[in-house]
């Protein structure tokens, strides 16, 4: 019954939905703010990766919100699972192969993550991707060593400091540059590692923050009963 109703409703919904989007020409160039970004990214932000310049500079406020969302997720998960967790994991370690591999790969993955967010303004990738990669690395260790404990204090300090860095950069911009999150550092030469003003700073902060937050999320979930 429910199935039939759902299929009927989704059929009608899908029909109209498709009729709107399928009439949209695919791969056509459209006018809009995107053009402006592409044309001015280097002169205005110094970042060659336009996506990064949009994410961190033009729409940096969104990114602050995005970081906040992740922060909320880790905080919220902590609140939601506060009573459910409490049990130490007492299972066996994984097989020696996994352990060795993990130990070898762990620093490499962390390094990869760091590379990704440090080069956010030059190559694809950035704080979020890098942070996620770092968290994956930590997860590997979680899986390999059952006794591997994430240092919660350290993580939350990293989380806080990274968040504070982001907001402080923003507020510094407000004081020195006249508006929140403004790029108050020199832009440098495009395609240099040290360029694009505050973008690397923000992305590094975001990278640390995301890495720490996702680790906390994983840890929170792993620590629950069963």
């Amino acid at each position, binding site marked *: 019954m429910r199935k039939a109703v759902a299929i009927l409703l989704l059929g009608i919904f899908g029909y109209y939905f498709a009729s709107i989007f399928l009439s949209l020409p695919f791969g056509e160039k459209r006018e809009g703010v995107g053009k402006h970004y592409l044309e001015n990214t280097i002169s205005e932000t110094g970042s060659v*990766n336009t*996506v*990064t310049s949009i994410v961190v500079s033009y729409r940096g406020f969104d990114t602050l919100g995005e970081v906040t969302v992740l922060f909320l997720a880790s905080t919220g998960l902590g609140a939601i699972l506060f009573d459910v967790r409490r049990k130490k994991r007492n299972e066996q370690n994984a097989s020696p192969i996994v352990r060795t591999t993990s130990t070898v790969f762990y620093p490499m993955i962390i390094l990869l993550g760091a590379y*990704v967010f440090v080069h956010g303004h030059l190559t*694809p*990738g*950035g704080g*979020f*991707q890098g942070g*996620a*990669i770092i*968290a*994956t690395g930590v*997860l590997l260790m979680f899986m390999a060593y059952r006794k591997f404990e994430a240092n919660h204090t350290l993580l939350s300090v990293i989380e806080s400091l990274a968040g504070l860095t982001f907001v402080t950069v923003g507020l510094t911009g407000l004081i020195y540059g006249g508006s929140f999150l403004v790029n108050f550092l020199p832009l440098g030469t495009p395609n240099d590692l040290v360029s694009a003003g505050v973008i690397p700073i923000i992305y590094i902060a975001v990278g640390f923050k995301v890495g720490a937050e*996702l680790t906390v*999320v*994983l840890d929170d*979930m*792993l620590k*629950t*009963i*069963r």
Partner: protein
Amino acid sequence: MDWMAFLVSGLVLILIISAVFSIMQKDLLVAVIGTAAISVVLSILFYLLQAPDVALTEAAIGAALSTIIFLIAIKKTDRFEE
């Protein structure tokens, strides 16, 4: 039809099939693998759509992290759908 369109249609087909598979599968573990497959395919599609940033994100977040937290959740609850 060039090979590009062929590739894309193949990927989209995989996408749809794995989506249907993952919601039909009674074993949630397998279903989650299905969603991971969706993410991987999506990631490739993003790359083909000239969005390397998004592709990287989808791979790191969608395919890896999101799958992992699903797996953890399944481990903490029931593996099989009644």
